């Protein structure tokens, strides 16, 4: 039977269309504009979920995402909130964490066992005997969790964006709207965000049986339309406040990160539950929830109601029910003196019985539905239960006993909140610069005052923003405190819930305190109060009151727990947005692809590891590339190397300071290898420096080092103020290494430069046109053959590579990748920073004394080297070979060198050299074993011991003839 009301003024639903969904397998209908909970409630469903621990039946409590009674799951959503999720055609929802659905949940027997499960019970057991611990661990793991993941649901990319405003107003209730309107008049750009589907807040649903509030709302919205600077964004929740007015706004499809210059928080308040036995029975709900059901969704919350209240809001709710034909059995007013406003009169004249000084001792439910409430007179010393106390029959109980400010964002912004013993509410005592609070979150409750307070905040904000110079207005203090100081009634039979998420009962708090967890933070951690998905929205306030009560201290003294983002949970896809991952490409990228490059990552670059050939496996390809370099000609893209220009009179002197070797004496037209250290003397980078003119050096860094080296060098020069300028050409320049016996023959075809050894010797550098494009040629021998590293502006690279390959065809040129280069350089005994060195390697351990000049006046790292130089090395880098006849397990990089039972070093590089016919490598080894010819043992995979011999590097062409005097 449907509880849908006849059309209600301002309802959000569209009756012209109907939608069908499934919940726990049953089909239900609703309308566009419904949320899942409203549609189900309209269809008479009362059990929308089961509680986390005891699996108790749960219905609508707040209908505002202040609890998770209505947590559901489908194939797309892990934990969908029925109270705020718009109804969509075809939804197929299940209540989370049940065995057999919300209604039939087989785990509901846990409720009977609750006596065995007091606060923190899981700490008290299940860990012994040790043998059983794992069983229990697995059991609890099974029981844990709420919604289920669906591995097949796709990665969602969301159009996250930045936004900017002078003023952000959070919450489009009366005070927020008043504030936004007022501020927009000043010329400031204003955005009002509202988490609900429509603006208005309580103006829309708290009507006290009349239409005036609704009409007032229409007015405000009409005025807003007139203001060009003012935007109202509904369905948008401010979930987090971060430094410098940086606010995360979450909409259905995306997150917007907004930078405001000032913020007005008008987020209102959250209804707080009364704590009594069975206060979680389906049918017991906040007054505001019932009003939302009526005015937003035109749903009858119940057929016969009782109202438990301590404020005018409860009386208004009673009138709202009455107006829509819902019988109100009684208004129970916790206040002995009752209601002072004319609402009292209006309620009695509606023939509604009012019982002053009365409360509810327990709710009575049958078949998971509320059937009545047992009432009692709250004054006097009486302890519950009170014998034969009256039961009022009803299928719905409205709670309106007080509020807690929705102040999460204020806390996050750094506001100081205090508890007022008059209003019995936390209020912002001190606000940070540019942050303002208005309306009920600011402790202002009567509508006219809330509108005034909104204007007041707006005027302060625009003044702060410099749009006005008027002095801040004073708002007359109001005199109405709707919040009850202690709406908590102990019942010996318990089941009086404080935290509905976590199934925490009143006694759990006393017990936690008894165990010593009587500090709010400790209590939170031990009892987990406020740690559920709704993050304490409906439970923290009562928890604090209970603790204050237990400790006999004021609420203010007890204080609150820290409020952290997020106010409402945020989906990972909203946070990640599109997830940008910048990658770099050399200008030769497409050519490598065409040549069949097998890619490997190098920092944020992609480099060809080798060039795949259909008829060969990786090793064959690599060997082929190596052979090409050794026997004829190879070409490799080394454009990922860092490349820097350094100009100026002090250029040489500058390099002297940042490289460990000698630089200033480098002759024009020559190059030199250099190693760079940090201040502790550890190797951080290496490269080749070339002197193109007296005041012009060009030098390279490692691929991964380029950005950091450039940054650090510019910092040094900011400090030293030397007369030179550094330019980072890493991306602007391409570089390719042409290597092999026939390198000169090829180059000769493409350039007029005199390549003869006499005029362009080994380690020389020249600037010349190659294939009609300007190039810098460095004659270096990293791979141990006659070679030219050719550097050219990026936009010419494609042309140059193509020309070289074309001209090289006849000479058997072959492109080679990183893998071949690694072997080639290993044959030459050249180290790779980061592979043959680690985070603590000094040039002394790397045996690179030849590359450091301690007699220089200064270089970065020198002073530290002076300290460690006299010391015995812990380890040194040596070359080694395996026996030519070696077969079986081959050590890998980072396999350990073992002497006796001790670690005596590790392999840093190893490969099989076809040229030399054996495995060669580099290793760190203790000095005792570093002597050339010393045999040592490497522990390879599966513990196989392999013997190796320390050998002199370079292994190939030690005299460097092939690259030198060719």
């Amino acid at each position, binding site marked *: 039977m449907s509880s849908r009301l006849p059309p209600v003024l301002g309802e959000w639903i569209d009756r012209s269309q109907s939608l069908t969904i499934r919940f726990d397998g049953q089909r239900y209908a609703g309308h566009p504009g419904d949320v899942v909970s409203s549609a189900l409630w309209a269809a008479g469903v009362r059990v929308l979920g089961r509680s986390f621990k005891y699996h108790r039946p749960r219905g609508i409590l707040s209908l505002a995402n202040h609890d998770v009674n209505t947590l559901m799951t489908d194939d797309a959503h892990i934990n969908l909130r029925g109270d705020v999720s718009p109804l969509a055609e075809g939804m197929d929802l299940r209540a989370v964490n049940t065995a057999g659905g919300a209604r039939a949940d087989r785990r509901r027997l846990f409720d009977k066992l609750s006596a065995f499960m007091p606060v923190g019970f899981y*700490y008290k057991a299940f860990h012994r005997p*040790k043998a059983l*611990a794992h069983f229990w661990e697995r059991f609890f793991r099974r029981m844990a969790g709420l919604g289920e993941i669906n591995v097949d649901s796709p990665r969602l990319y969301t159009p996250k964006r930045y936004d900017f405003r002078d003023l952000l107003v959070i919450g489009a209730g009366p005070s927020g709207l008043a504030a936004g309107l007022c501020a927009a008049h000043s010329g400031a750009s204003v955005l009002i965000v509202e988490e609900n589907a429509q603006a208005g807040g309580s103006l829309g649903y708290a009507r006290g049986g009349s239409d005036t509030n609704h009409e007032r709302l229409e007015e405000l919205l009409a005025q807003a339309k007139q203001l060009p600077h003012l935007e109202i964004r509904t369905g948008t929740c401010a979930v987090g406040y971060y430094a410098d007015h940086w606010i995360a706004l979450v909409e259905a499809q995306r997150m917007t990160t907004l930078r405001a210059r000032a913020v007005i928080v008008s987020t209102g308040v959250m209804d707080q539950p009364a704590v009594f036995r069975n206060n979680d029975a389906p049918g017991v709900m906040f007054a505001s929830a019932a009003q939302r059901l009526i005015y937003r969704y035109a749903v009858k919350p119940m057929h016969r109601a009782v109202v438990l209240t301590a404020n005018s809001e409860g009386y208004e709710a009673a009138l709202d029910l009455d107006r829509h034909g819902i019988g109100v059995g009684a208004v129970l007013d916790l206040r002995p003196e009752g209601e002072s406003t004319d609402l009292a009169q209006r309620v009695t004249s509606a023939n509604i019985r009012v019982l002053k000084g009365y409360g509810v001792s327990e709710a009575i439910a049958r078949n998971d539905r509320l059937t009545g409430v047992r009432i009692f007179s709250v004054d006097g010393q009486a302890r519950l239960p009170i014998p034969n106390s009256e039961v009022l029959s009803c299928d719905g109980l409205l709670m309106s006993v007080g509020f807690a400010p929705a102040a999460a964002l204020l806390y996050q912004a750094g506001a100081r909140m205090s508890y007022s013993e008059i209003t019995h509410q936390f209020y912002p005592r001190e606000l940070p610069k540019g942050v303002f609070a208005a309306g009920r979150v600011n402790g202002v409750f009567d509508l006219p005052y809330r509108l005034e307070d909104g204007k007041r905040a707006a005027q302060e904000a625009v003044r702060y923003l410099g749009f006005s110079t008027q002095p801040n207005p004073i708002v007359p203090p109001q005199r109405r405190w709707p919040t009850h100081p202690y709406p908590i009634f102990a019942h010996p039979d318990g089941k009086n819930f404080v935290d509905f998420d976590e199934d925490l009962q009143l006694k759990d708090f*006393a017990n936690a305190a008894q165990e010593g967890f009587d500090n709010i933070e400790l209590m939170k951690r031990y009892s987990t109060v406020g740690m559920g998905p709704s993050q304490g929205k409906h439970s923290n306030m009562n928890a604090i009151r209970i603790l204050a009560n*237990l400790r006999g201290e004021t609420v203010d003294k007890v204080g609150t727990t820290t409020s952290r983002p997020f106010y409402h949970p945020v989906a*990972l896809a909203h946070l990640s947005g599109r997830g940008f991952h910048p990658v770099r490409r050399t200008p030769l990228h497409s050519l490598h692809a065409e040549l069949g490059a097998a890619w490997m990552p190098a920092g944020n670059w992609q480099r060809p590891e080798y060039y795949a050939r259909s008829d060969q496996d990786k090793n064959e390809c690599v060997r082929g590339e190596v052979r090409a370099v050794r026997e004829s000609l190879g070409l490799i893209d080394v454009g990922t190397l860092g490349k820097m220009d350094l100009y100026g009179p002090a250029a040489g002197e500058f390099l002297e300071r940042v490289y460990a070797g000698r630089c200033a004496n480098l002759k024009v037209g020559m190059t030199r290898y250099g190693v760079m250290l940090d201040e502790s003397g550890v190797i951080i980078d290496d490269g080749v420096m070339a002197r193109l003119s007296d005041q012009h050096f060009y030098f390279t860094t490692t691929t991964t080092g380029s950005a950091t080296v450039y940054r650090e060098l510019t910092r040094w020069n900011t400090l030293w103020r030397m007369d030179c300028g550094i330019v980072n050409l890493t991306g602007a320049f391409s570089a390719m290494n042409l290597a092999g016996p026939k390198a000169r023959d090829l180059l000769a075809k493409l350039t007029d430069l005199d390549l003869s050894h006499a005029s362009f010797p080994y380690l020389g550098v020249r600037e010349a046109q190659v294939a009609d494009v300007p190039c810098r040629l460095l004659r270096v021998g990293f791979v141990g053959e006659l070679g030219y590293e050719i550097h050219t502006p990026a936009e010419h690279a494609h042309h140059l590579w193509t020309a070289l390959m074309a001209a090289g065809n006849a000479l058997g040129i072959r492109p080679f990748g990183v893998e071949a280069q690694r072997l080639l350089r290993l044959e030459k005994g050249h180290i790779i920073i980061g592979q043959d060195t*680690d*985070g603590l390697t000094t040039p002394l351990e790397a045996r690179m004394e030849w590359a450091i000049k301690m007699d220089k006046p200064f270089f970065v790292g020198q002073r530290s080297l002076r300290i460690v130089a006299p010391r015995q090395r812990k380890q040194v880098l040596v070359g080694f070979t395996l026996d030519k006849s070696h077969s079986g397990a081959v050590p890998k990089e980072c396999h350990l060198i073992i002497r006796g039972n001790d670690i005596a070093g590790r392999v840093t590089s190893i490969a099989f050299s076809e040229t030399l016919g054996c495995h060669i490598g580099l290793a760190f080894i203790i000095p005792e074993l570093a002597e050339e010819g010393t045999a040592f043992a490497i522990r390879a995979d599966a513990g196989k011991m392999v013997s190796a011999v320390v050998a002199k590097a370079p292994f190939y062409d030690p005299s460097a003839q092939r690259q030198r005097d060719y």
Partner: protein
Amino acid sequence: MNLILDTKSGFQPEYGSQFNQPPDAISMAFGLLRFALSRDYPEARMFRTPERLKPTYDAVIIGAGGHGLASAYYLARDYGLTHVAVLERNYLGGGNTGRNTTIIRSNYLTPEGVAFYDESVRLFQDLAQDFDLNLFYSTRGHFTLAHTDATLRTMRWRAEVNKHLGVDSELVGPEFITRACPQIDLTCNGHAPILGALYHAPGAIARHDAVAWGYGRGASQRGVEIHQQTEVTGIDVRGGKVVGVKTTRGYISTSKVLCAVAGFTPRVLNMVDLRSPLYIHPLQAMVSEPMKPWLDPIFVSGSLHVYVSQSARGELVMGASLDPYELHSTRSTLDFAEGLAAHILDMFPFLSTANVVRQWAGMADMTPDFAPIMGKTPVEGFYLDAGWGTWGFKATPVAGKTMSYTLFNDRDHDLIKGFRLSRFAEYELTGEKGAAAVGH
């Protein structure tokens, strides 16, 4: 309103019988039964809250976090030193002990590190029994993912050192990873394909708060005084010796002070004029809504700056690398959550609609070589337990063991010799840094 619970009894320090129960099988059943049977809640106070400070103690421990309480516990249990005060400026276990992501492992890179953390993992095994408190210690297996061959090399290095020292640790391939976690996207959305991983079977998680409570209760039972809301304002040093401690609740004379305050260490070192390489950066984390268990192992990826595990409550506990600059506060940033979310989805794309409920931060006390600073200091009677950066929780038991030994004997415990403060001046750094891109 007189309908208020009578909880007076809750405030007398009385000790329940369960403390001297033998660890037998029925005790579990009893553990729960007693709640149902007894009319009054049968549990005693876990830790006493003494009214006032005594004028003198044999030793003062600054910081009632895991490390401080563990040290107090072992001082009392193993050395009978019970006339000890643990001073806490805020509340017990409220610092990084309650903020970390509870990962426990010993697959470090250096022999010093491995031996140290391995002892810690060993001690964790029996802790629940020692405490008679369920710590939800849960062995899940720990994967450190390698997305580049360089990382793969480092992983092999760690695996080899670990194996050499008898720690269960190995280099595994993608197929092994898929078997342990079929849900993972091995290509990481194409831009960081997983080449392999360092697999550490003993990798575990535990309920971090409970560890602190267990040590606290154990220490308190044995007579140690835990003073919360008691801030140390100065340390009285005369002739290079500690003679007393100034606090917001009065002066204490003592000859031994242990400093175990993580992110606050530099402030305390200042009180005794010691300089150190410690620098403080926030470490942030976030947690998802509870979901039905699906993620068994713990995953760490240095390249993606991610570590993630699923807690006993079903929440995904997620973290990333340190914040990029010094800050002595625990504020959260949105860019952290944004970046971490993107990387989590690279590994587990189907989590797109999974909700993050809360983010938080701790203050990590970092060192240049990613190893702690422990032991004696140039100030006689002042002992340091610091440099815990992002790896302090897993060391809680062994830090307590070794620091209690060090304090009692005034001699550095063998396990921590490599972590001495003087190693920096001596250029004898330990090499953990190589292994720790994301050091959890």
